[in-house]
């Protein structure tokens, strides 16, 4: 009798275990997303050459979908006078290779915060392929 009770107990325990197994759920919500590109950086240029002590203060990229289509750069024009400044935004890949470039050139007077607007990048680049953005401003004799 005791042996039969023990066997029935084991039987019900295993039945319960099998039901538990069927209700087992491993939720994929608990799996963290995998990083393909977990980091990105932006370099803002600052010049220290005669006649050009200007510095970049900010850059903002414009996207259409995932494609970089433009940029707005603000720089502090410290060196006074009326002269031309070429602003270049360079998009680089994971290996540091340039994949796209956008430029704008304008004439600026006085000192203070100035804005350069880059209307396009060539060739077209997806933001997801960009690991580093470089922003440089250069005093040039002429924008032509």
């Amino acid at each position: 009798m005791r042996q039969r009770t023990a066997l029935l107990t084991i039987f019900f325990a295993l039945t319960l275990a099998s039901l538990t197994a069927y209700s087992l759920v491993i939720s994929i919500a608990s799996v963290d997303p995998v990083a393909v590109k977990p980091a990105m950086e932006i370099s803002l240029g600052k010049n220290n050459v005669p006649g050009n002590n200007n510095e970049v203060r900010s850059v903002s990229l414009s996207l259409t979908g995932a494609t970089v289509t433009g940029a707005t750069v603000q720089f502090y024009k410290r060196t006074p006078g009326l002269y031309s400044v070429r602003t270049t935004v360079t998009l680089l890949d994971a290996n540091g290779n340039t994949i796209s470039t956008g430029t704008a050139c304008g004439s600026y007077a006085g000192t203070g915060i100035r804005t350069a607007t880059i209307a396009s990048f060539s060739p077209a680049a997806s933001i997801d392929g960009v690991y580093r953005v470089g922003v440089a401003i250069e005093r040039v004799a002429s924008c032509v």
Partner: protein
Amino acid sequence: MSSARRLLPLILALLASSAAYAAALSMASGSIDQLGRGEAPVNRYYVRLLSASINVNNNAFNNQITGGSVSVASTIPGTYIVTITVSTSAGSRTYATTASLSPTPTTITFTLNPALPYTAPGATISVRADPA
């Protein structure tokens, strides 16, 4: 013969539970793509740094970066530990926070303490996001 008959339910139960575990694990592993063979892929995210701005203490050439802001997005929505590192030739400062990121850019402002000299040839703002 009698003991074999008694063991029969036990053996059947063992077989049933083994089959149940196999079925359950098969269903679960089929939805996970860790080995690249599952049916449902694990989310893969890209961090997008869409803007960076620095604040400085003054407009003199030997000024210092006191803080700034970044606009950052992730292709996969979620909570991330965002680490912002600002570097110049004078050194680097790191700021970390937890933020909810999504494909819509989120602006994160940061303060550098102590301030970091803004030296030529410039400053690099690096943003890294890891799942929290």
